[in-house]
């Protein structure tokens, strides 16, 4: 960070930056003093890094949020050797990372929410700060926190142990199935103490329906051919990463047709 760049900032901006660096006594400093301290601070240690994103995606210099075209190569700056000779570009000041105000992750309620991610995954999050967690620990004593996943389409349930402090969980599930969840403590004696329950959700169907329309009849091979004409369903437009998905998707679709399609003709599955 160069002094000249810092000089170009307002006192307010310098103050915010010194906050990010955790510089003591910053509120009492003049602009000059802030600049001085920041120069020394940046020489001493690296600037605070933004929280690393869990998904490691190639950082692209542009920022379009809604565009589908994914260029294969990330933005690369033209190497200096091929640009006309010039003074080395001054480094812009390291931007401090303003993430906005802190939000408390809990709201003092007892709640379990479940969301659909895709045919095979649902997402659950909970807030037990309304008293349920404490109450249950008093009631039940020792045990393991579980998500009880009720399969409403086929009856029965499965208990999935979870890290209660984590506040959320992704669950692998079956497609085209209705579920309801509970979160609670399974105690030593095997009793389940419910802290909160969720709404019902249904996972999407993955693949073509077995239901045939009498009025708008289409034969099996005709429908398969129609799908073939339509094109690769799993293609999410572009990019080499997506290309592998296209290949997998085509393969999956082909398998889906041959098993779900042929074997289900005439067979009575669920209505």
């Amino acid at each position, binding site marked *: 960070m160069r002094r000249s760049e810092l000089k170009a900032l307002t006192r307010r901006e310098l103050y915010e930056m010194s906050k990010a660096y955790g510089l003591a006594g910053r509120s009492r400093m003049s602009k000059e003093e802030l600049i001085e301290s920041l120069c020394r601070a940046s020489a001493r240690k690296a600037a605070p890094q933004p929280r690393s994103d*869990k998904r490691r995606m190639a950082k692209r210099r542009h920022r379009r949020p*809604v565009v589908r075209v994914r260029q294969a190569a990330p933005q690369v700056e033209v190497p200096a050797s091929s640009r006309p000779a010039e003074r080395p570009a001054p480094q812009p*000041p390291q931007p401090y990372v303003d993430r*906005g105000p802190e939000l408390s992750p809990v709201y003092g309620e007892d709640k379990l929410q479940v969301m659909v*991610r895709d045919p095979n995954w649902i997402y659950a999050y909970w807030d037990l700060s309304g008293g349920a967690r404490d109450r249950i620990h008093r009631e039940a004593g020792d045990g393991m926190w579980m998500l009880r996943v009720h399969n409403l389409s086929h009856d029965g349930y499965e208990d999935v142990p979870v890290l209660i402090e984590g506040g959320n969980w992704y669950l692998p599930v079956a497609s085209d199935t209705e579920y309801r969840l509970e979160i609670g403590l399974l105690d030593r004696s095997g009793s389940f103490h419910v802290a909160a329950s969720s709404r019902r959700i249904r996972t999407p169907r993955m693949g073509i329906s077995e*239901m045939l329309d009498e009025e708008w009849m289409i034969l099996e091979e005709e429908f398969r051919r129609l799908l073939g004409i339509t094109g690769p369903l799993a293609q999410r437009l*572009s990019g080499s990463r997506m290309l592998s998905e296209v290949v997998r998707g085509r393969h999956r679709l082909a398998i889906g047709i041959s098993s779900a399609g042929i074997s289900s003709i005439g067979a009575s599955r669920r209505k």
Partner: protein
Amino acid sequence: MSHGYLAFVLHAHLPFIRHPEYEDFLEEDWLFEAITETYVPLLDAFDGLVRDGVDFRVTMSLTPPLCEMLVDDLLRARYLKRLNSLIELAAREVDRTKSDGVFHEAAVMYHERFQKTRRIYLDRYHGNVLTAFKALQDLGRLEIITCPATHGFLPNMATPQAIRAQLRVAVSNYQKHFGRRPRGIWLAECGYFEGLEKYLKEAGLRYFFLDAHGVLYGSPRPKYGVFAPVYCPNGVAAFGRDIESSKQVWSSQEGYPGDYDYREFYRDLGFDSHYDYIRPYLHGDGVRRNIGIKYHRITGDVALHEKEPYRPWVAREKAAQHAGNFVFNRQHQARYLHEYLGRKPIIVSPYDAELYGHWWFEGPDFLNFVFRKIAHDQDDIKTITPSEYLKRNPKNQVIQPAFSSWGDKGYAEVWLNGTNDWIYRHLHHAEERMTALARRYTNPTSLMRRALNQMARELLLAQSSDWAFIMTTGTMVSYAEKRTREHVFNFLRLADEIENNRIDQQWLQWLESKDSIFQEIDYRVYAR
């Protein structure tokens, strides 16, 4: 003989970004670039078609946040300032490249183009691009459809009230801008869940769009695949995306925009020029960024520094060729499907509007040529709007479409994964709280009403699916996180102030002037 229909759908959307608290703000550029590179060129192309008596039909979704920004005084003033500085820079470029034959042609092109843009923007449209779109709709060439209020991804919402509000606010906002009700809607990211049609019908919407698998995985099986609309059991129609025509334009491998003669996006004057020369045209932070003047063509699978100079006329010729190819393929597709299905297909081709002009510089030229060729060079296909198609073909199969989106992997993962799942506990809490307060305060004082309305605005802005999307793609993540946190924070603070009857008037006023979307909003839209 006519064999089928082509429905072009251009989805024009930008999240609401307006920062009066800063003198200039980087992300506001997205709007300015879109106006210069996409909306004005598209409008100019459409105006030309009208003027030349070329019959055509096109459908566009203009999302509420985009509409609001296009008529916002502050943003319009800033846009003009940007356009003027671009013209000034382009003039200097013409001078600079005079002795340099290779780049001079492009420099002259940019200078003329930007000046033309200003003429069109000021003289023809009086600084209001929205009225230009409206005029085309009133002429019957363009059908404008709406989109959820802040492009919220509806499957990820927790309460019916929140879904209703996104739709109702969108419909009112559409009425405000276009003087009539919208017939159709572009669901944000085509995000659909079974039963959503109930809310669409309540809002008076008659049709929407789905990615192909939303129709193809529907139940019972759709007889005509995506080549005819289907009715949900409650009568709302759904049009499925055609993959063929999408691939031809979208695909980075096989699509037209990747042609070697087209303009290379990633070689921009903002990065290539001497720093001192370009500095006045950058933002206050002095960071190099895309300016919109680019001198190279894609050239091939080569490194950036090996890109060759851009030749505008060669590129334009290519666009004409590609247009011819596109139309030819659609003719072929329509003839084949007509024969195979025994019914004239409707080929639905949706694209992000920004593809045309911003990402693919020659895109608007391509579209212009496509419409002209369809009108003059053949009679296998006609362009049509979804409303017209339904009028002509009211009898369609009834199916229950499937949960789907046009995002990566086809469901909700893009907006629900490790990078962004943390937002939902906040958004859902806010949804519930908004409904509770909307129901409780049926007769508020005028100050309280203002606060309640602003709460609704903050909630809607927090729900923009753009933030979650940005968190997934990993670009500008801190901006998206900040927007989410700020709007939720504002919402919670307003809620507390209202409940404790201690509204900070000054702060409310400041919020109203900054998060100024939907002046017409009525918080009671959350009560039912």
